[in-house]
């Protein structure tokens, strides 16, 4: 039967190469079996364990790359995976960034991963952009060399790289100094809330990538639906535009866990 795109079905592929940024942060390269736009993600399956969403952090030379950080059982198991191991890859899922005009690219923490592919894409399209990235500390700042080539500005909580401030501080200053059409953002939701506010104040468009608990990746199970509009982050997201963000009732609020219940507010 061939009524669906084969790439959307489960398909295992051997890891072609593992790039170790640190023992807790690695990139995994696979043969590229489908097209993907920046901001789109794949569901990555470790057979016998679980399957989780990961953004495409680059596509080049017929390879597709994802970059993961060890934060829990799944991502720690992923750190053990070697070239040659077969993992399942389904995708590409969701809607990514839709480049337009002069862009301000703002990332925080693991949210930097998809932005790497975004800037490569923007460069290829000769679209003008500036980059501001934040992390807790220098060791956690991903792809510093790569982003530096584009004149990225950095912010860390501890001042070990770039300025000692929040990345939203960098973004605000850049917006004051230069003119932009759109803010592209990916990172912790409080950061996104601040970017949305900034964009609203400045009258800029914004495209922000959200995270919600994902199970199916294909807009069916409902576990990733935002409150308010009910859009599926896996399908209509993860990147939402301004109008869509206005309809996210739980934007910046605690969202739902694997049972579908709202998580208690973080303390």
């Amino acid at each position, binding site marked *: 039967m061939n009524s669906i795109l084969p790439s959307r*079905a489960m398909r295992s*592929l051997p890891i072609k190469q593992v790039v170790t940024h640190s023992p807790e942060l690695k990139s995994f390269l696979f043969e590229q079996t489908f097209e993907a736009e920046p901001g789109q993600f794949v569901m990555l399956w470790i057979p016998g364990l*679980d399957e989780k969403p990961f953004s495409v952090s680059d596509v080049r030379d017929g390879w597709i790359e994802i970059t993961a950080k060890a934060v829990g059982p799944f991502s720690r198991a992923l750190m053990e995976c070697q070239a040659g191991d077969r993992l399942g890859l389904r995708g590409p899922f969701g809607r990514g960034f839709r480049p337009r005009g002069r862009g301000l690219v703002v990332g925080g923490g693991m949210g930097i991963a998809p932005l790497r592919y975004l800037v490569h894409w923007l460069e290829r399209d000769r679209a003008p952009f500036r980059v501001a990235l934040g992390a807790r500390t220098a060791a956690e700042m991903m792809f510093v060399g790569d982003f530096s080539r584009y004149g990225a500005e950095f912010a860390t909580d501890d001042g070990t790289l770039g300025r000692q401030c929040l990345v939203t501080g960098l973004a605000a200053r850049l917006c004051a100094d230069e003119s932009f059409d759109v803010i592209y953002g990916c990172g912790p939701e409080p950061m996104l809330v601040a970017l949305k506010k900034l964009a609203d104040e400045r009258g800029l468009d914004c495209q922000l990538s959200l995270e919600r608990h994902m199970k199916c990746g294909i*807009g*069916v*199970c*409902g576990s990733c*639906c935002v*409150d308010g509009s009910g859009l599926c982050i896996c399908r209509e997201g993860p990147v939402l535009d301004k109008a869509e963000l206005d309809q996210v009732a739980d934007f910046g609020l605690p969202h739902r866990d694997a*049972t579908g219940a709202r998580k208690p507010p973080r303390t």
Partner: protein
Amino acid sequence: MNPLAVQIAGIALESPLVLASGVLGTTASSLRRVARAGAGAVTTKSCGRTARPGHPAPCVLPWPGGLINAVGLSNPGVEAELEELAEYRRTCAAPLFVSIFADSPDEFGRLARRVAEAQPDLIEVNVSCPNVESEFGAPFAADPEACGRVTRAVKENAGAVPVSIKLSAQCASLARTAVICRQSGADALTAINTVGPGMWIDVGTGRPALANKVGGVSGPAILPIAVRAVYEIRKAVDLPIIGTGGVSCAEDALQLIMAGADAVGVGSAVYAGGVEVFGEINRGLSAFLKERGFDSLAQVKGLAQREGRA
């Protein structure tokens, strides 16, 4: 008059299309979104007494014939679900069906009592989920008498809220099960749940691709089985039927209606078609009625039950 309007168990629906349980059915927001996209009624994902995270992923996979899933009855528990129900009620007028599962008739009864207090339009009783075989579902759906016991327990507790029993095509005898459900007080029947179970193996790793290994098969692949099931049930009883299984276009929905369904469940089609599929099927149904000179769906319901020529 709206030619697509139907009634089931006294509930008026603007469209015969009902969002099937388990698809975009956990939150008030997603249910409302589907209602606005054109569903005549929406069904919540089955909920039990307490929260369950369900099986690990992969738990829903597309395959060329549709979907295969072993979500494992993840749900936030009945109390959280009732909050969603209240929120839905405040913001959306389309009828809401609440699906419940449990592991004993008594437990079904208790759950039904709690849910009925919140006054949903209908309680759907999931006796047929194949994904938690040893825990829930299998024993009831496979055994007509057990379906009867569950039905009685729910009816005794549901007060005025109508009750639909959701049957499986794997029932030993669908006709007999339907008759027993009716005798036990069911107000409607929903048929069918997923088929199988099935298994999809990733040949690259030689591993079952679902974490649960096996899962229920749904989507286009099961349409003929759903049509046959509805046909069989309609021959056996005169209860309203929510015919469900494999519907992704107006012709599919018409097959179920002609087999004898009063309303039509749509679940997996949301994968290929998005929530927009509800509007598209509605438009297709209207176009069919108009082209063939029918005033309402009632005129085509059960057409396939006729015998002989002409």
